[in-house]
């Protein structure tokens, strides 16, 4: 279809809409509009969508056809009125279906407009008052939004318009949650990845709103049901990163404990990500999780230095160890283990590790014995620290010293060497250095030389002599 035809079509739709609005007699044109809504072109779809919206907004407010009250004067009139309103009702349900179907259209524009039209319809008092209509509408929306074959994440981002302007937003939200739960139960197990993604996104959207107690309870049960499903690793990571936000809106976040502790036991990145959720539970909701620090201790391995989530790990670990009420043997164990690890770490990781260790010492002054000890004999035959001990309590870190810092004083990186030489520093914010990469370090050293001269090698060379026993 070429451009002219489309524009004429759109014009036709507009004139029809005007006609309908002018007189009830032209109401039959609604059928034409509904037919238009079956077209392929998205411009026509948008136009028809909007036309239907304006028409029914008009009718819903002008003619209370949705309520089945018969207050007509004469029986004949009443009969006619009844006929019209029932016909309108049929057309209205058909329109609602069409609009909901549009929510899973491939074009985002159509989706947005239909969502807007639906939300404006929902806002009118008449629609709101009839529970039946609202229920069907919401069911249709949710059914379309969490489809198992179409990725709806883009339109889910727009969903808050549904309840933002409405008066009874909490009622709408709880209705949504009910329908989500229904959908999840009805879907065939195991659910597809797309379905779960849509679901999770919608839950997150709902959790970002202000909720009342009823909604919170509903949300909690929905989430618990949702988390029982099996899911892909990527979605799992997504959930773990976002769970801290959702957790605040749940009525009883402790119901997540099982899920988090299980994921903590999986190991690797997932276990790291579950750390934060667990920590919030422990910190705010008094979860008793005795093995937490032992497990965190076991996560300090050489692999953390090269992993992509290095910054996140150190950020979380710094948060976990920020409490000054932790026993000093525990913090000492962490400091010793990290310093031991930094002996084999790349320079960019040591840049984080050293301030991290000094932060620990600054928070726990009892750790200062590790960098300056006066009571023991001045020489030890070997390091009392037991590196392979899994329990931080029995690794004897407090008996040891941080000789690793002395080793790192001889590090080839000048700034690491300088950092290691400072024994006592005030606690500093790590967030600025967590993202340091090797490229950043190199560019910080490779500044343009503005001086007149720089040091050179003064030993004359005879050719390109290679290092070691290599030749050209």
């Amino acid at each position, binding site marked *: 279809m070429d451009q002219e035809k489309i524009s004429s079509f759109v014009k036709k739709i507009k004139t029809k809409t005007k006609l309908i609005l002018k007189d009830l007699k032209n109401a039959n044109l609604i059928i034409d509009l509904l037919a238009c809504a079956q077209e392929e072109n998205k411009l026509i779809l948008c136009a028809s969508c909007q036309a239907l919206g304006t028409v029914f907004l008009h009718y819903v407010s002008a003619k209370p056809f949705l309520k089945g009250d018969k207050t007509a004067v004469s029986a004949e009139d009443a009969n006619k009125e009844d006929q019209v309103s029932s016909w309108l009702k049929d057309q209205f349900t058909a329109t609602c279906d069409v609009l909901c179907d549009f929510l899973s259209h491939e074009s985002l524009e159509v989706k947005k407009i239909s969502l807007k039209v639906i939300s404006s319809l929902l806002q009118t008092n008449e629609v709101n008052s009839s529970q039946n209509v609202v229920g069907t509408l919401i069911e249709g929306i949710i059914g379309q939004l969490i489809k198992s074959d179409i990725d709806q994440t883009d339109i889910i981002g727009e969903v808050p318009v549904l309840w933002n302007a409405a008066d009874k937003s909490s009622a709408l939200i709880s209705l949504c949650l009910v329908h989500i739960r229904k959908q999840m139960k009805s879907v065939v197990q195991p659910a597809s990845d797309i379905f779960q993604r849509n679901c999770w996104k919608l839950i997150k959207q709902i959790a970002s709103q202000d909720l009342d107690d009823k909604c919170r309870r509903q949300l909690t049960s929905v989430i618990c049901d949702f988390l029982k499903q099996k899911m892909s690793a990527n979605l799992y990571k997504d959930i773990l990163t976002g769970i801290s936000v959702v957790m605040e809106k749940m009525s009883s976040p402790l119901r997540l404990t099982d899920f988090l502790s299980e994921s903590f036991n999986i190991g690797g990145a997932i276990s790291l990500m579950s750390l934060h959720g667990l920590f919030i539970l422990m910190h705010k909701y008094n979860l008793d999780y005795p093995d937490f620090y032992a497990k965190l201790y076991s996560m300090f391995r050489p692999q953390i230095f090269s992993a992509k989530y290095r910054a996140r790990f150190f950020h979380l670990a710094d948060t976990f160890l920020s409490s000054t009420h932790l026993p000093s043997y525990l913090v000492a164990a962490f400091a010793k283990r990290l310093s031991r690890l930094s*002996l084999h770490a*790349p320079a960019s990781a040591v840049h984080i590790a050293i301030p991290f260790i000094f932060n620990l010492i600054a928070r726990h002054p009892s750790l200062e014995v590790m960098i300056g*000890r006066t009571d023991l004999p001045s020489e*030890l035959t070997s390091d009392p620290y037991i590196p392979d001990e899994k329990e931080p309590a029995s690794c004897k870190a407090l008996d040891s010293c941080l000789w690793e810092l002395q*080793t790192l004083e001889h590090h080839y990186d000048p700034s690491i*060497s300088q950092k290691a030489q400072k024994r006592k520093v005030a606690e500093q914010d790590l967030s600025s250095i967590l993202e340091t990469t090797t*490229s950043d370090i190199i560019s910080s*050293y490779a500044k343009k030389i503005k001086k007149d001269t720089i040091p050179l090698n003064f030993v004359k060379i005879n050719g*390109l002599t290679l290092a070691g026993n290599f*030749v050209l």
Partner: protein
Amino acid sequence: MGKKGLADKVRNKQKAKSKQAQNPFEVKINKVKSSVVNRKLQKWEKGLPGVSRSKAVKKRKDTLLRELHHMKKSNLLHDKRFGENDSNLTADEKMVQRFAMEKKKQIRKSDFNLNEEEVVLTHYGQSLAENLQDTIGSESDDDDASKNLKTGDLQFGGFTNDSVSWKDKMKEVIAESKKHKFERQAEKEKTLETTNELDKSWKSIVTTLNPVRDNQLNKGKVSNFMQLFHTLVMSQKSDGATDKLKTEEEKAKEEIEKLKQLEAERIARMKGDAQSSSKRDHTSADDLCDGFAVEKPRPLVSFSIDGANVEQDKDESNEEEEEDSHTDNDSDGTEEENEDEAESGDDSDTEEEEDSEEDTDNYSDLASDTESEAEADGQKKSSNVKAKKADEKLKPILKTPKIAIKPGERMDLPFIIPAPGSLNELKSLLHGHSAEEQAIIFTRLRKCHHPSLAEGNKEKLEQFHVYLLEYFGELFQEESLDKHLVNSVTVNLWEMTQMFPVSTANCLQKIIVDRQNLYASMAQSKGGRGSFVRLDTMMYLMLVELLFPTSDFKHPVTTPAIHFITQILAESPVRSIHDVVAGLFLSSLAIKFVHQSKRYIPEVVTFLHGVLFLAADMSKELKVFPPCQALGKNVSLLKVHQKCALALQDWSISELLNSTADVLNNDQFRCQALLKCLVLVQDCLTLWKDLPLLGQVMKPVQEIIGLLPEHLLPQEVMDKCESIIQLIQASESKSLKVMQPPTVKPVPLKLFEPEIEEFWAGKRKKKGPNKNENEQKRLTHKYKREMKAAIREIKRDNEVLARHQLDTVLQKDADRKRKTKTLLQNLAAQEGDYKAIKKAKY
């Protein structure tokens, strides 16, 4: 004579004045706060109040009271008598003077009185009568000769003696001195002329004598004449008496000093700024002792821009040294030819070369420390040498690359080559030429664009240097590598780096950073796992090591370079046998970077651990460090399957990296790689033997060595393993010193700084900050004092006037009383008389 009398008079007067004896009863001694023993009474410590008061009173009497007396009177009486107002004259003197004046007046009156004048006969202005009386009267024989002469003079009218007058005598003396002066001047001019003439003739002789030096026969025996000749030639070259030629001992000493200084500076840089800033020489009173101090920028060692000349300004001894070292190093003997070729290419060079060879004998005692001097070659300070000479001395560069030129080919190359404007121009310039020819092109380019020759040459040469750096990288991208060419380019790069340190550093830094960015973006796209870099990048890193001091604590080129190396080692998993080779090369390069500073590189340890892991038995779970993975298809890349013999040999990096994987994929090569890796581990252990916890650092390596398949490995490898494990155990058994809390330096007491004046004038200077202000202060002070003095004087004046008035009143009263008394007396007497008469009447 009158003048002398006056001076005497003044002096005597002053003496008399000072001699006025002070009346001890009049002296009043002021009270002092603290008396000092054995010190004379100072002027301000005593005074004569009575005397000064009476003086003041007298003065007022003479002035103020007189004025008062004359007040309201129109007439004034002037006393013009001689000496009446002069208080210095005594009454007697006054009288004498007055008498004398009276006499004078009387004499003047007799001007017109002719009778009283007496005529006296004179001879020579002396009265004859007196002289005659003298000669006749005195008969003393005291001084005959003088007497005779005198008498003769006098007796014969004074005309017998023809001696010249005093004036003439003086004239004669002046003329004589003038003559002497002129003679001296003439002599001086003559000597100057002859010297010039001699100089001219000497120059002509020098030119004619020059061929003598070429005579090879004379070379052996050096006569005294020749020695003298040479010293003359040398002295001719020197600028003046101040630029004395240094002896060989001095030169050697200077070079050693210079070397020592450079080494000391290198070590200072190695330790970093932190240490150097720690010693502060001065603590101010305002210092808060918080460790904060404004650091002065420390000048770094520099071989200044004119390091260009450095190379060329070598004097003979140096050149000779260099030659020595070259011939020492030279094993294939091509160099000798090459030298000759190069020399005949430049005719002007021949002389210079011969010259230096001549001197060989003289400087033979210098050859004590060849190595150190060879090092010092690069650091000779430049003195102002003529451009031509500098150009001639560029020659040693020609010798360094090992090239043998056939005489025919050399002629194709032009002598003057324009500087290339871009890298492509340089490439097209070099295209089709052999390594030897390219080396000549480099040399000639540098010669004809030497900065001392023309303006703008420096920029051209700098640009050429940058292109050459880029060309260096491209050399390694070609299929077959020309090693001679690489060596000559490297040597040229080194030498030009000494000329343009900053531009080289910037350029090389940019190359390194660019390649690192490329590597990082590649690694980013592959999820943080990079791949080993190509040969040219590795060679650039190698070049950094050769050109710049890697031992510096912080250096704008070497620090990024070592970071790049370690990043490659830490982020690139080993995927093929080529990666093993590249990684081992980079590890050895990293170790070379720190071999002087002995700094610790964790990435090397983890990489070597990873390589050993590839060869180890996988029977049990092993700890691995990233990027190495415990599982994967490459885990048994270096696993030896069959026992084989092995010989450690040098690896040619270019050949190995260009060869196919099949060639390398055999057990023998794996064993070699393993052995290389173990050698590097051993290097690490010896390099870092002083690090605390080295045992812990190397523990994973020790574990993995224990897992190597012993039965399959050659004996050499096993020996190496053994020695490494021993080293690790030794370092593990080392006792650890418990960390002590840092000793806090005692905070010094805060003291005020003494103000030290360099030149103490014996007085405290009351110097204000500003000249105007000082003047203002002085004036106010003076004004105050004057004001005070004036007020005091006025008060005293008033006192005097008041007393005077009182005196006059009292006097008047007394007079009146006295007069009344007399009157009353008279009246009483009269009355008495009257009464007596009356009585008598009755």
